[in-house]
């Protein structure tokens, strides 16, 4: 049996020899992709174009502008001279925010009973930068306000330290963006790699009409399935190691947990996705169709993983459904091991879920595939 499976595995690799692009993508595509995404996304939001209309033109207003500039969030555009100009620039999408310092800002600021007005206009057509701009400007204004209050109260700065609290960030002390993004991207990349290559296994044979040839040969359906699985698993685990290397060496993310545990669970997760991918593959009539199905299934998983938005904030029904998505547990496991140094004890609920879901998916996929092949 083993010899026959090996000959099947050999056949799969033989197919790769004809086209060197494919093995290159299979082996290095994932790592390259991760490198690209990580490079683009693992940085804070900075350089947002900001326009300032300083009608006051006093030292106080200039100080405010400098404080805003010092946040590092913005890049100052040419100063505005009218609201129409701001409107035009915002319509064109050239700026994310505008700050208007009205006449008499400094006067109000120095007046004991005064309350200076500061106007901010955000470009709501890009809500993510708009929120970031709002946060940065609110921070500057808050600090300035506290300083003024202290002055007004006649309290010296030593007496009143301000109401700031100490913040500690666990697992990511320096708030490094790459820590947030790259382990999660690694988890998703592994899923997509396995799903895609598993989904193409049978649909390619079917499209070429070679599936029948394979079936009349003296192989059992189980042997065919195992023979088709081994290359996908090998490629998946190789890609995973390479991508882990990218996460660790290119983005300097520490790996705090056990590597052995991580690879064992990665192997387990690979089998789960393999089951899904192969079921898609047997179901599809062509490679084109398997790809489209992978895209849909992958997107549904993506929604439940908690990569982009926390699952806790989603409707209750989605939170419950998320438990049934293997990728959700896989993401928690990978983040846990890499960043938190979690051991099997902390990860037990996720591992058990993965095990249960994997068994169910595996059982049904195997039954479905064997039935379709026989």
């Amino acid at each position, binding site marked *: 049996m083993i010899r026959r499976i090996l000959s099947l595995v050999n056949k799969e690799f033989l197919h790769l020899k004809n086209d060197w692009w494919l093995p290159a993508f299979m082996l290095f595509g994932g790592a390259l992709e991760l490198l690209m995404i990580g490079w683009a996304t693992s940085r804070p939001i900075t350089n947002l174009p900001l326009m300032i209309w300083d009608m006051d033109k006093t030292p106080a207003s200039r100080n405010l502008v400098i404080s805003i500039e010092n946040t590092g969030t913005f890049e100052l555009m040419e100063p505005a001279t009218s609201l129409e100009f701001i409107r035009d620039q915002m319509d064109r999408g050239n700026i994310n925010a505008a700050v208007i310092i009205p006449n008499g800002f400094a006067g109000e600021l120095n007046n004991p009973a005064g309350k200076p007005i500061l106007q901010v206009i955000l470009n*709501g057509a890009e*809500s993510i930068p708009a929120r970031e701009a709002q946060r940065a400007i609110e921070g500057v204004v808050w600090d300035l306000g506290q300083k003024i209050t202290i002055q007004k109260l006649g309290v010296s700065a030593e007496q009143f330290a301000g109401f700031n609290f100490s913040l500690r960030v666990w697992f990511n002390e320096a708030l490094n963006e790459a820590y947030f993004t790259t382990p999660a991207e690694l988890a998703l990349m592994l899923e997509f790699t396995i799903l895609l290559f598993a989904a193409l296994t049978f649909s390619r044979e079917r499209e070429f009409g070679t599936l029948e040839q394979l079936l009349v040969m003296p192989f059992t359906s189980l042997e065919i399935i195992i023979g088709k699985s081994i290359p996908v698993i090998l490629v998946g685990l190789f890609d995973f190691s390479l991508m882990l290397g990218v996460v660790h060496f290119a983005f300097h993310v520490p790996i705090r947990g056990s590597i052995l545990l991580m690879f064992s669970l990665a192997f387990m997760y690979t089998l789960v996705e393999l089951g899904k991918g192969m079921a898609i593959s047997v179901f599809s009539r*062509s490679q*084109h169709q398997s790809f489209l199905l992978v895209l849909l299934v992958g997107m549904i998983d993506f929604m439940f993983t908690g990569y982009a938005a926390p699952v806790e904030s989603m409707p209750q029904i989605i939170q419950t459904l998320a438990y049934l998505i293997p990728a959700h547990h896989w993401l928690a496991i990978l983040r846990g091991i890499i960043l938190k140094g979690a051991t099997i004890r902390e990860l037990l609920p996720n591992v058990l879920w993965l095990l249960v879901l994997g068994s169910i998916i595996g059982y049904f996929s195997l039954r479905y595939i064997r039935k379709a092949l026989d």
Partner: protein
Amino acid sequence: MSFRHLWAVIRKEIQHILRDRGSLILVLITPTVVLLLMTYALAVDIKHVPIAVLDYDQSPVSRQFIQKITAGDDLDLYTSAGSMTEIENLLLRGKIKAAIILDPGFSADLFSLQGLALQVVIDGTEPETGGFAVDHIGWRAETFANQILSTQLQASGLAVDTLQPIDLRIRAWYNPSLVPQVDLVPGLLSVVLGFPAFSVALTLAREHEHRTMEQLLATPIKRIELLLGKIIPYILAGLMNVLIIPLFAMAWFDVPFNGSFLVFLFLSVIFLFAELSMGMVIGVFMRSQSAALALSFLVVMFPGFFLTGIFFPIASLPELARMESLFLPGTQYAIITRGVFLTGIGLDVLWPYAVMLLFLGLVFTGTAALFFKKKLA
């Protein structure tokens, strides 16, 4: 170029699409369905973030403070912890995203204006929830401290109505409450309308893989006719989504549509031409469908997602990525869709982006035609 030839290729391609019923349905619905899924996945208002509290002060003020902090639906009190180890454990298991530790002198420090004897710990692995918790805890803590300070000052005869002396007036144009899906849906259009590009790449690679390309070329059909015939059916499939998605966006997600629909339709056709030509280049180079797929993911899907300014502002990208984003049709189209949906601008402002899209489309088609010839020669 002969339109009879072009039509023959289009008919062949359409017949092929129609024969594979499953793929046909998927080609037509995938963009819309994925847009729905992605909007639900990404446009989430963060709330109910679970936190734990460790109260070493145990005073009426500290209890009142904890009550104030968890009063809204933004932060949920998961548990009152008894020790640091308990908090450590909860963070490790991911049960809580943040913890507040009130030090022994909390109320005393507050009344003597010594500041806040307060520590906040967040889970640094999940940026959104962690940052959200910090912002909201900070905001509530400052309000709480200010109230106490104000009452104290009033008691001592000083008139201070508020500790925030600057009147900050923030307005957001086009999307006053900064609802995420309002700009996400138009932005995502540029991602999901890129999916037919995969189909174009696959259909061209299929002809190589099945060795039917030679047969096609033995016919009097010119290469450019073949290429255009291959993408036109998919441009039509994409256009169907261009018609459906705005309806969904307006009815389902309350996204306004302030511009002209005709302008939107016209620019969408140009975008589809440019984006699908990228798929054409891939299909010409790749000899197998799997390789074409893998390359499409690398050069269409992920840059289209991360470098077009939908999630991450282009201004914050490194120089090289900013350059690259200029040459992605998705970048231009995201500006166009947001402009047409939200800002309500017309061709007078948008024409440079349209020209750029047309230019990109011609360059991609030209590249495909050129290398197609060389590869076969």
